[in-house]
C-alpha cells in the first residue's frame, strides 16, 4: 500500500508504449528523489489494468502506431489519468505518448485518430521522418535551460492557444514549426528521447519540485558531462 509520505510515480502502459528506453525517465525520477531523501513508490500500469488516480507524477512513453492507438482508446475508456490530472498530478508525455495527449493524431495509414484531449494540440503525419539530435531553448516559464535529446518521429504537431511551446528549436524539427514540445499546467509533452530526463535533469527536478516543493541541490557531474558532450556535438559553433 502507498504510504502518505512517499512520492508516487505512475508509469502508464509500459507494455504498449516504452520502446525507446522510456523506463529511463522513471529510473531518473526515482534516483533524483531518493538522493534527496524522498521516498518513492512506483507503479507500472499495464494496459489491461486500471490507471490509479492517486499518483503524483505520471509518465507515458513512445511506441509504434498500433500500440499508440490502443493506448489512446484504453486511456479514454479508463478515465484514471484524467481524474489524476484534475486532482493536480503532473505528467510527462513523450513522442507517441505526447501525441495522444492531444485532440487528434495520425494513425498507421495517416488517418486521424481521436486523442485523449489533455493538451490543446493536434498531430498528424509529416512528409518525412524527423530523426536526429535536437537542441532547443526552453520557455523562460520553465527555467530557460537548453533542451537536448534525440527525436525520431513522423509527427507534425500544431499547438493550440491552450498550451505554450516547451522550447524553440536551435537544431532539429520538433513540432515542425520551430518549436519543440509544449506545456500546460503540470503537463509537459515532448518528442525527445535520450531519454529526455537523462539529458535534461533540470526537467526531472521541475516535476519533483511540483510534487514535493523546493529541492536541495545534488551532484549532477555525470548528467552535466553528458549534456556538455551532446550540446557540443550538435550546437552550431
Amino acid at each position, binding site marked *: 500500500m502507498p504510504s502518505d509520505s512517499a512520492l508516487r510515480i505512475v508509469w502508464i502502459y*509500459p507494455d504498449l508504449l516504452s520502446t525507446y528506453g522510456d523506463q529511463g525517465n522513471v*529510473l531518473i525520477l526515482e534516483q533524483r528523489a531518493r538522493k534527496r531523501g524522498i521516498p518513492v513508490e512506483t507503479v507500472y500500469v499495464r494496459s489491461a489494468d486500471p490507471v490509479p488516480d492517486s499518483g503524483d507524477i505520471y509518465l507515458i512513453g513512445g511506441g509504434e502506431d498500433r*500500440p499508440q492507438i490502443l493506448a489512446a482508446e484504453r486511456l479514454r475508456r479508463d478515465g484514471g489519468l484524467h481524474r489524476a490530472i484534475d486532482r493536480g498530478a503532473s505528467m510527462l508525455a513523450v513522442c507517441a505518448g505526447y501525441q495522444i495527449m492531444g485532440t487528434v493524431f495520425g494513425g498507421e495509414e495517416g488517418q486521424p485518430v481521436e486523442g485523449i484531449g489533455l493538451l490543446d494540440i493536434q498531430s498528424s503525419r509529416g512528409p518525412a521522418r524527423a*530523426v536526429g539530435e535536437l537542441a532547443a531553448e526552453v520557455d523562460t516559464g520553465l527555467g530557460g535551460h537548453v533542451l537536448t535529446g534525440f527525436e*525520431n518521429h513522423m509527427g507534425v504537431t500544431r499547438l493550440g492557444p491552450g498550451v505554450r511551446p516547451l522550447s524553440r528549436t536551435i537544431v532539429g524539427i520538433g513540432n515542425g514549426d520551430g518549436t519543440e514540445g509544449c506545456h500546460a499546467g503540470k503537463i509537459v509533452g515532448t518528442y525527445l*528521447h*535520450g531519454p529526455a530526463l537523462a539529458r535534461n535533469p533540470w526537467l526531472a527536478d521541475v516535476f519533483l519540485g511540483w510534487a514535493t516543493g523546493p529541492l536541495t541541490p545534488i551532484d549532477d557531474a555525470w548528467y552535466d558531462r553528458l549534456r556538455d558532450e551532446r550540446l557540443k556535438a550538435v550546437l552550431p559553433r
Partner: protein
Amino acid sequence: MTQLPLRAQLASALGRTAATLSRVTGRGDGSVIGGRVGLILEPDLLRKLAADRKLVLVSATNGKTTTTRLITSELQELGEVATNAFGANMPAGHVSALASNKQAPFGVLEVDEKYLPEVLETTQAGVVCLMNLSRDQMDRAGEIWLLAQKWRRALAGKDIHVVANCDDPLVTWGAMTASTVTWVSCGQPWKEDSWCCPECGGPLDRKGDDWACRECHFRRPEPTWFLDDDAVIDPRRQRWVLDLRLPGRANRANAAIALAVAEVFGLPVERALPRLREVTSVAGRYTMVERDGRSLRLLLAKNPAGWLEAFEVSDPSLPIVLSVNAQGPDGRDTSWLWDVDFRILSGRPVYVTGERRLDLALRLDVAGVPFQLCETFDAAVAQQRPGRVDVIANYTAFQQIRAEFGRAV
C-alpha cells in the same frame, strides 16, 4: 546447376573482381561491393543465382549470423553450401555469396529482417528459419509489429516450410501464415516487446514459455522440438545433449532451431549435431584474444535482448569492459541503454569505454553500479591484471576492437 546466361555470368565475374579489389586493398571483406557491382549490371542476378538451389533464409533480430553459420555447417554434411558468412545480409551480400560458389547445391542466407519479403520473392527459397523479434536500432530499423505484418504477407500463399520459435509471440504471428511450419520451443528471455497480443492488442498471459491472449484465440502453437536446458528434444521425444563449443543459452537456442532446419533437409540429428559442435567462433564473436598476458573474450550485443544474452554468457567472477558507440549501424539514439538492466554487473569491476561512454556512465550511475571510465579500449585493457576479462561491445565498437586484433577470426 544450370549455366547462367551470358550477361549474368559477366555481372557475376565483374562483381567477384570488385570483391577481390576490396579485400586486397583492405577496405572490407568484399561481400557487399562485389554483390553491388553485380546487381547494377544485372538486376535479375539474385533470382538467376538462386534458381535450382535448395535455399534456407535465416532471419531474426538476434543470432542471425551465428544460426546461419550453424545451419551451413550442418548442410555441408550433404554437399557444398553457398553462404554469406560475414553478416552481409542484404541482397548485394546474397548475390556475392551465391556468385562465389556457383556449383553449391545448397544455400544458407542470413537475411536482414526488413529485406525478408523481398529476398523471399526473388530467391523463391523453400525454407525459412525465424528465431526472434525485439526492439533494435529504432532510429533506422523501424517497428517490429509492422515487420511481423510484412512477414505474414510475404509467407502467405506460398509453398514454403518455415521453422520458427513459437516461444516468441511476434515471431509466431509473423510465421503462422506459411503453409507448413515446424514450431521449435527455443525460449524467449527478453519479453518486453511481447506483453500484448499481435493479433488483437489484448494482454498476453504468460507462464514459463507458454503464452495465450486473454481476449482472442491467439495462443502459442504446440512445438515439436524443444530446447531443454543443455539438450534438444526432437519430435520423437529423444533427448540430445548439445555439448556445443559456442557458449551460452542463446547459442543453444540457435542450435535447437538449426537441428529442426536440418531435418527439413532430411539430415537427422545424429549427423547434424557433430557438425554444430565443430563451430567455435562466428565472425569474431566469442573469440578469445590475447594481449600482454590478458585473455579477452569478445561478446557482441547490439540491443537490449542481445545484452541480456551476453550477460548470461559472461562469467560473473571476471572483470568486464563495456564499449558503446552510436554510429549509423549501431543506431544513433542511445536511449536503448535504459532498457538494459545493468544491475547484474554489481560487484564486478566494470570498465566503460567507446564513443558514447558518457551515456553508459550516466546509465550505470543511475543503476548504482560502480564503474571506471576509460578514454580508450587500450586504456581499459591496460587497467586489467593478467588473466581473463570479458568484453561486451555493440556493433561498430565491436568492429573497432576486432580491427585492433587484425580481425583474428
